[in-house]
């Protein structure tokens, strides 16, 4: 009975046999676990669409009300906290997985003939994923989001000639205000996902057209003249049906990914809402979400004279690199014969991790909440030294310099500065400042400087 019904549907639509052809199309043998990251990225996107639609039914995309609706979703709506958590960790998974997927295809040179356009559509999908991540962070419309919009606009403003126009386009006007959030919402929810759907469709059509790339072998270069013929022979000789011989790994990995995202959503939960999105509240510590934290560090640590180049040319160079990769479409695929490719991937991931750790510590940020030094650390009753220690805290020295583990990390630790600098040297440094230190002659009276120098000379 079911069989007859299915046969009838297939006769009238052709969908079932088409799906079967796709599912059972032969793929190269021994593809293994390295091939699961693309499908897992797709699954993460589907997860984002589902949880995103649910959240959109309660979220109010209005600059004045989004914050309250987020509070409602997080604190009162049934499953709201869980769905926000899923959407956050789903986004994290999607960013991470597409990063691994692009690294894998690059390391295995799967972009070579005839799959150049698989790479290019994937590269655009990578950029769109990052755009979704950025706009999505902003929809968590709290204080950090507002300042992230401004920081984003200020970065765009560095572009030559059209910079200020791009900045106005991002802010939707002269300042953050009523128009800003609605636009980000429309981009995050309609425009970018529509492009992603279209490009995923194209990406998958290309995957089916050219087949999944076979495992690379050292000493077996790609030659466009013979590649297709050899690939077809490989499939005829050793090909296995995609479903279930290869697909089971995608399913196992994908299910594990969804379970992990759900567990994190339950155990860790979504990021807390910060203070309200009021640009007149100046006690703010704007920080991007983890996937952009490394770039936040790049912006802090870049040499000042190279900064414009890094902000403007950096993303362009990154885009150009993604664009030119598939034009090197012949030759060896095995990473053993492409040591530079391996080095590049290791380099990029190392840079991201190193900058990410730096962004997490943010030693360049002043420590506004540093407490006064305890008497025990000051370690004497000498009135000048005690007065110096108080000034050291009150005049903001401690925002950037630590003593005995208390204080900022921007400047050198001064716990034992008396050992390495004379009183004259300390005076000169305080008076004149340095590359990253204000000249305190404009802040302190000579008596105050004297007291601080006395206190610091005492540190040994």
């Amino acid at each position, binding site marked *: 009975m079911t069989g007859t019904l299915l046969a009838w549907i297939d006769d009238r639509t052709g969908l079932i046999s088409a799906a079967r052809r796709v599912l059972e199309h032969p793929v190269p043998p021994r593809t293994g676990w390295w091939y699961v990251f693309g499908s897992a990225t797709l699954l993460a996107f589907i997860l984002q669409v589902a949880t995103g639609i649910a959240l959109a039914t309660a979220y109010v995309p209005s600059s*004045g009300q989004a914050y309250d609706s987020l509070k409602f979703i997080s604190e009162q709506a049934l499953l709201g906290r869980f769905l926000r958590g899923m959407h956050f960790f789903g986004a994290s998974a999607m960013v991470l997985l597409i990063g691994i997927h692009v690294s894998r295809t690059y390391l295995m040179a799967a972009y070579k003939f005839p799959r150049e356009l698989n790479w290019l559509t994937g590269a655009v999908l990578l950029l769109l994923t990052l755009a979704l991540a950025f706009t999505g962070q902003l929809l968590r419309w709290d204080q950090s989001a507002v300042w992230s919009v401004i*920081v984003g606009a200020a970065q765009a403003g560095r572009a030559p000639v059209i910079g200020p126009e791009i900045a106005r386009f991002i802010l939707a006007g002269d300042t953050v205000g009523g128009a800003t959030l609605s636009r980000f919402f429309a981009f995050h929810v309609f425009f970018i996902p529509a492009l992603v759907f279209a490009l995923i469709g194209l990406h998958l059509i290309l995957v089916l057209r050219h087949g999944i790339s076979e495992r690379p072998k050292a000493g077996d270069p790609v030659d466009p003249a013979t590649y297709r013929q050899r690939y077809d022979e490989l499939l005829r000789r050793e090909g296995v049906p995609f479903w279930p011989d290869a697909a089971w790994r995608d399913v196992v990995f994908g299910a594990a990914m969804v379970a992990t995202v759900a567990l994190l959503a339950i155990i860790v939960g979504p990021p807390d809402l910060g203070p309200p999105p009021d640009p007149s509240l100046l006690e703010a510590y704007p920080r991007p979400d983890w996937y952009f934290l490394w770039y936040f560090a790049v912006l802090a640590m870049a040499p000042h004279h190279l900064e414009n180049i890094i902000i403007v040319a950096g993303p362009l160079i990154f885009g150009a690199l993604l664009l030119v990769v598939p034009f090197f479409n012949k030759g060896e695929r095995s990473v053993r014969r492409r040591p530079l490719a391996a080095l590049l991937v290791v380099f990029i991931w190392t840079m991201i991790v190193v900058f990410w750790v730096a962004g997490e510590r943010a030693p360049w940020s002043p420590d506004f909440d540093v407490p006064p030094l305890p008497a025990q650390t000051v370690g004497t009753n000498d009135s000048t030294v005690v007065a110096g220690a108080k000034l050291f805290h009150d005049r903001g020295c401690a925002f950037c310099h630590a003593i005995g583990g208390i204080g900022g990390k921007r400047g050198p630790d001064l716990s034992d500065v008396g050992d390495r600098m004379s009183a004259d040297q300390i005076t000169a440094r305080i008076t004149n400042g340095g590359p990253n230190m204000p000249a305190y002659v404009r802040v302190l009276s000579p008596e105050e400087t004297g007291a601080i120098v006395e206190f610091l000379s005492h540190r040994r």
Partner: protein
Amino acid sequence: MDAAPHADAATLARRRFLSRLSIALSAAAGAIVGLPVIGFLFAPLTRKAPRVWRAVGRVEDFRVGETVSVRFEDGSPLPWAGVTARTAAWLRRDDASSFTAFSVHCTHLGCPVRWISEAKLFLCPCHGGVYYADGSVSAGPPPKPLPTYPVRVRNGQVEIETSPIPIV
């Protein structure tokens, strides 16, 4: 492509005309829909917010030499802007009758600088920019001094003129 049937010269010319006509009509229909959409998206580039004077307090509310944050409303707040219509400035009373209003936006990347009165410095929480009391850069990545906003006294009220977020 397979050869089309009845491909005599007149039919070919007719087909060529019909395909050109169809393409042109499709493009026109697309433009009718697409151009207003693009124009709407880029409208903020042509729409300048009016600059208006906002009162931030009476002259006697401020002590000479002190720098405090004041909040006021944007030039043209939309009805649904809520708290996002607010903005702030660091206002200093220089003497009996003159004031200076500094932007709260770090010239590095726009983060909110804080005035630390004891240290007489503006500090930025994002990438560690520091400015002296007069707004000049003293340390860190900022490329320019803190901008100032026009400020005036009218009928005993201190007024600041609304301005766009300074984009370097």
